[in-house]
């Protein structure tokens, strides 16, 4: 048992980057929260990263600026980091550590869970199966989002990922059900302007009272970003599992989160993995992403849309790479499409939704959905290949059929992917796809079964009747 009084240490011996080393700790446990009092009385929060008989390593969320090695006092609380959660959090704004950031009073907690959560027993998970209509054709038609999925947006600097995330949030609905949804928004190191874009967006659509904000802005302490998504997911779990809400968690920007992780790893002088990111980054990211899902016998669900910036648009960079290995697909934005005015600039070829087949088909979307999607993919991929060829040999060298494919690729980008603020139902999306496919000869539609062609093809076999 831990004694009731807690001892204060004045034995800070080493300060480096975000870390402080406290000497001769007694009965301290791994992962517990420390409270650090600076010589001027300022209070900061930290977490124990490593303990031995000689020293405890503490990461300080607010940074070590002005920490000294004589008067700084450290108190260990004996508890892991917890967050006060309540349904009253909806409509409120918190900082990256979960403290109120608006002017209103602290919430009255219904629970105080550990922000690190616990792994969901794979046996207790329920299979995601509900189609979420986002109203965005490139997602609904080709990379369908399913409730309980984690589907990140891979963006590049300057690409409109936030607008897309806002559009998805605004338009998303599950058919048959309305109302019992909530949004948890975790901002890590984004600018005030970006944060305010989301606030306004939610305000305009009247969703503000259904949103919890956790804001760590660009000028807030970097290390706090380690805790931000964990707080957000803890709040989301409370809403989902204690209040049966369907929660959409938007986390932006994961690249900033990973940089904070790298900063701590470097300060600890750990053996670096790729590009200086720690070797355990995969495990660390999965402890966030795997908190999405549904649980058998519970009504709520957690769907995640993490947003990340691919440095130099490089999809093989460790942050998108490790994310892609954990999440159930990805929506990739393309600079090339963006420059050509395609909005949203979703490049469907590298995009993917792994859970798509669980959410589509008869009774969910439509029987032709899988076939149409496969066909559009195959035809567009072929058309894109031809573009490269045209650049070398010119369009005249192509066969008539190949020219049809080339035109298909252009019309697909302009008419299917690009839609600006339009909110399209799945039927509209599939309708546009059929319209585009009808520009190709029917015998080229090898991915679609003959019966479905007869039923849905807008022109084939219809001339006579």
């Amino acid at each position, binding site marked *: 048992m831990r004694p009731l009084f807690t001892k204060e240490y004045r034995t800070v011996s080493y300060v480096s980057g975000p870390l402080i080393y406290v000497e001769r*700790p*007694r*009965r*301290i*446990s*791994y*992962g517990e929260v420390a409270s650090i009092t600076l010589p001027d009385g300022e209070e900061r929060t930290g977490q124990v*990263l*490593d*303990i*031995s*008989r000689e020293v405890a390593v503490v990461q300080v969320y607010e940074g070590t600026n002005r920490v000294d090695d004589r008067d700084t006092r450290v108190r260990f609380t004996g508890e*892991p980091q917890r967050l006060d959660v309540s349904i009253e959090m909806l409509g409120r704004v918190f900082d990256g550590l979960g403290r109120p950031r608006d002017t209103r009073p602290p919430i009255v907690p219904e629970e105080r869970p*550990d922000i*690190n959560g*616990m*792994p*969901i*027993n*794979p*046996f*207790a*998970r329920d*299979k995601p199966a509900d189609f979420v209509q986002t109203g965005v054709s490139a997602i609904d038609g080709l990379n369908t989002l399913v409730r*309980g999925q984690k589907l990140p947006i891979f963006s590049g600097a300057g690409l409109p990922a936030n607008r897309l995330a806002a559009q998805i949030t605004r338009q998303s609905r599950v058919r048959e059900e309305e109302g019992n949804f909530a949004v948890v928004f975790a901002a890590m190191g984004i600018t005030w302007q970006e944060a305010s874009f989301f606030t306004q967006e939610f305000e305009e659509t009247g969703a503000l009272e259904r949103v919890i904000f956790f804001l760590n802005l660009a000028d807030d302490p970097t290390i706090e970003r380690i805790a931000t998504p964990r707080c957000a997911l803890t709040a989301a779990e409370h809403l989902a599992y204690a209040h049966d809400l369907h929660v959409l968690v938007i986390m932006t920007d994961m690249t900033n989160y990973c940089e904070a992780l790298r900063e701590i790893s470097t300060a600890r002088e750990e053996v*670096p*993995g*790729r590009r200086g990111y720690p*070797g*355990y980054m*995969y*495990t660390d990211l*999965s*402890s966030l992403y*795997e908190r999405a*899902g549904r649980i*058998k016998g519970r009504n709520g669900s957690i769907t995640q849309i993490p947003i990340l910036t691919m440095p130099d648009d490089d*999809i*093989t*960079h*460790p942050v998108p*790479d*490790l994310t*892609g290995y*954990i999440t159930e697909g990805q929506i990739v934005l393309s600079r090339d499409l963006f420059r050509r005015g395609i909005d949203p600039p979703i490049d469907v*070829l*590298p995009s993917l939704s*792994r859970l798509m087949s*669980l959410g589509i088909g008869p009774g969910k979307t439509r029987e032709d959905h*899988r076939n149409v999607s*496969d066909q559009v*993919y*195959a035809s567009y*991929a072929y058309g894109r290949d031809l573009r490269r*060829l045209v650049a070398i*040999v010119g369009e005249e060298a192509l*066969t008539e059929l190949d020219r049809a494919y080339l035109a298909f690729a252009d019309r697909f980008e302009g008419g299917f992917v690009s839609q600006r603020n339009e909110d399209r139902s799945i039927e509209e999306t599939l309708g546009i796809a059929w319209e585009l496919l009808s520009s190709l000869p029917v*015998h080229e539609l*090898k991915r679609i*079964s003959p019966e479905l062609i007869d039923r849905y093809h807008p022109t084939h076999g219809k001339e006579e009747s």
Partner: protein
Amino acid sequence: MIQGEVIRVSGPVVHAGGLRGSKMYDVVMVGEEALTGEVIRLDQDVAIIQVYEDTTGLGTGEVVENTGEPLRVELGPGLLTSIYDGVQRPLPLLAEQSGDFISRGLRVPGIDHSRRWEFEPVAREGDAVGPGDVLGTVREYHLEHRILVPPGVSGTLESVSDGSLTVDDVVARLDGERPIPMVQAWPVRKGRPYARKLDPSLPLVTGQRIFDSLFPIAKGGTAMIPGGFGTGKTVSEQTLARWADAHVVVYIGCGERGNEMTDVLSEFPELVDPRTGNPLIERTIMIANTSNMPVAAREASIYTGITMAEYYRDQGYDVALLADSTSRWGEALREVSGRLEEMPGEEGYPAYLAARLAAFYERAGRTACLGAGDRAGSVTVVGAVSPPGGDFSEPITQNTLRIVGTFWALDTNLAYRRHFPSVSWIKSHSLYLDSLKDWYSASVAPDWVALRDRTMYLLQKEAELQEVVQLVGPDALPEGEKAVLEVTRMLREDFLQQSAYSLVDGFCPLEKQYLMLKAILAYYDAAVATMGRGVALRQVLALPEKNEIARMKEQYDAPRIRDLIESIGVSARALEAER
């Protein structure tokens, strides 16, 4: 029992003092919550321990107890249909104890000790028996589960039990030996003994055309499936788990997604094994140590899995072990190694990575089993590899490549255009072709080898021609080469592409695979022959048989494909006659 105390905690690695006398890989109980761990280094009287559970809340000064035993799994009837975490704790029992989330310090038995099994003795009183001899059998779903004399035990049978028994009940007594219960425990890091290894001369039929027809794997062989994210590693592994012709399948979800395991869990009870008609789940053991579950248990999970696989192999069964993904296992090694402050090798992986990988894959094989009778069993290992950035030059891919017999390289570009399975026919290879040749010639068709070689030749040729097309456009090619491009397109779209989700085409029998290939090549031969006699390629392409070939996979059975092959010849001759 040796007792010590925690002196340092760093993530999953704990240092404990006062444990002098501990052995490497002893299992220890750490702290007040009695978290399970394993000794991985000894330094003076300090033992360094990797802990299989989350160490948050563990403090210095807490007690550590050494059990003196290595990490073991329980082997016996009841393994099939189970779903375990990395250290053989059944997940349904964990859910009973701690709810929907996994908490710490839970201890549950690996197999059900209260369930009764109908034991039918085979050996008789007075028989002299040795390791691996069959004492009797119980029925575990469709499988005749053979209860064997454990390794290292022999003597004359004093008594053999009969009837309804639990796994703890004694099935046999030998003179001068401890009584033998149905359940055995075996240390996971030690391969189970066998009489000798056999040559890999039988294929593991998977029903997947690109695997069976182009890059086959032998029973007892090893294969790797590397690919960037989204290329379909997991779908490939799951397809193999469904359709591979093994008696038992061990599926290890090692550091992968929770929802994918749920998918397998909810799907397998409904899917039926095409060979036995039984639900697939009844031949499956699942190990789910998802990415957010503790790292050290992830490291142990593949050993837990292969030990169970060897147990069924020793009974004389063919076992397929599917590990998704071995990269996550390698990363677990790296993480623990980093915490030990070992000198890193390539990309931070420990220097012993290659040795560990090799030792793991070497536990695969087709073996003559210990004991009387002519039993042979096999463990086939297929490991998915997740190379960072899809770059195959990274250490896990390269070190695995040196060991395995079959290399199924997944290609991101194929995946982008939804060509699935996205196995690259240019980069992949199989070292079992020679040893399986005779089987295919005898069991499928004498010209199987020739057909396969021609297919590979055409596909290689296509790759070369594509480069030319990129420079000068398709029109500049001579007719004969255009014909190659047309036929290889058919090979790609109508033969190699195979939907894992299709009810008809998800599993393609070998005979049909052979005939499909034969039909496409018959079409090519007809095209070449008629063009040699002055028929234009355009006319050949207009033949109705071309569209029929596209329908083979979903709509045609073997006799219909045979008819199709005939009609290709007839139509081609008609074209020539027209001229």
